[in-house]
């Protein structure tokens, strides 16, 4: 019965979201508008994170490596 309790828990979370953001009080078309806006913003946020976060993380990683004394591969090959 894990699925059932999981579903109940998710429904309860959805109810909390509705109560906190006052969408419990909205008429159906307002709810549609509100959720469309929210889901669009969320999807855009996730997409931006998917595109930019790996690039930024690897740049930060290289910066910290450089800071702690490790030579970069390119400089070694130029000397050679």
């Amino acid at each position, binding site marked *: 019965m894990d699925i059932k309790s999981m579903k109940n828990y998710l429904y309860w979370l959805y109810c*909390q979201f509705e109560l906190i953001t006052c969408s419990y009080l909205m008429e159906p078309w307002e709810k549609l508008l509100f959720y469309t806006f929210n889901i669009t913003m969320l999807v855009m946020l996730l997409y931006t994170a998917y595109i930019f976060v790996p690039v930024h993380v690897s740049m930060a990683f290289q910066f910290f490596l450089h800071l702690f004394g490790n030579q970069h591969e390119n400089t070694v090959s130029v000397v050679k």
Partner: protein
Amino acid sequence: RQNILSPHGCKFLEAPHNRVTNSTKQDKNGISNGTLYKKTFIEHFEQAPMYVAVLTFLGFGVGTVFGYLRDFMRAWGLEKRNVATEREQQKDFVPLYQDFENFYTRNLYMRIRDNWNRPICSVPGPQFDLMERVTDDYNWTFRFTGRTIKNVINMGSYNYLGFAETDVNALKTVTIELQKYGTGICSTRQEMGTLDKHIELEKLVANFLGVEDAMVFGMGFATNSMNIPALVGKGCLILSDELNHTSLVLGARLSGATIRIFKHNNMQSLEKLLRDAIIYGQPRSRRAWRKIIILVEGIYSMEGSIVRLPEIVSLKKKYKAYLYLDEAHSIGAVGATGRGVVEYFGMSPDDVDVLMGTFTKSFGAAGGYIAGRKDLVDFLRTHSHSAVYATSMCPPVAEQIIRAMKCLMGLDGTTQGLQRVRQLGKNTRYFRRRLHEMGFIIYGNDDSPVVPLLLYMPGKIGAFARRMLEKNIGVVVVGFPATPITESRARFCVSAAHTREMLNTVLNALDELGDFLQLKYSRYSKSSHPELYEETRLELED
């Protein structure tokens, strides 16, 4: 020249049994002088965690955005207009419907309007019947289905002693008087409207309260708003509590006196105002004030707090001011024999200059009274607007008050009155203790039968009231403008007529609903077995 530090004022030592159990009480209501109180005075005004405030503002923000959207759609004709709008010919005039309260009413109140103005169709006893109503267009119009919802537990009526009853034996004298006098008076007190019933009732009220004389009026609100202008006028100073009822505010404004407001139940604020009034006098002429009157209530119905009467009386005696005490919710409901806050604190009624109260709450009738010294009441008989222009109380209602008061005083030969007062005290303490243990934030004094339970978020107001009705419990929820905008609450009124089973039903429903709606914000919930652990003591003297 007065002394800056009086012997009273610098005593901040609290007796060990008068422990403050909640640290935020001092921030809100100032420090109390514990040595003036004969029993412990514990009040709770806990603040919710920060995330609750943030989420409340978020909810209001979303509501406001959608409010603007709907207003825009209504203005441009995309949606049918159900609200009041200006006429076409007056479009260029100063707009009538743009201020915040109208915005709030149109866009937020309308969405949850079905929780208020619910018509009931039985006596508002511990249980009542509701007419079922549904709405087809999101609360703009209602229609009745014709069915009634039976035996809904009543947690909203001010029926503190349970005198709102239809028992034939109890109402015997009322029916006799109804058949003898009819219902209408058709006159004012000063013309031909003073009946022997009024004289009997006034003597009884004076006897009950332990004062010289009393006068009764037909309407409780009008008692305040029509009598304060008779007592004070221009050149007088009114010091009124922040959270006073509208009737007191209206009476104060109508009188034309200068009004200054002190923080709720905060004696330091009141003392500062009194000192400034005496030192500086009237604003431009610097003359002494003709009268300084302090307006307070016995129990504040939105907060559930009890006035700090001993301290106010000592301040009033020191600075020679007058005290007007509005005991609308406290007469009959607190005190060992139901005689109000004066008895609750063990003080004498001679300390209070004007004792005012209403019969609507604890006596199951309608009307109000003003009691005090004989010369005060004689003055009001001639000079009050209510005596000159308002119809007097109708005889069956007066008889209901007489029988309720006789029952309370024990003059009908039974101990029923005292039993009711004791039952109310027991119910109040039980209800509050259980709610504290469950973890809700409850405001107010431990002995007040008015119990506000904080909801905070606007979405939860509607959800709470509707779900409680589904469980067959009727509650009153309050939001802006009766309360500050972020502190919406559900207000329970405990009654002596509630049995332990009814209270347990309500408490179980609240427990369930509290878990579902996440209303248990309290960080100080006490365990149900306090003797198993030692509480920390705040000892201020070694």
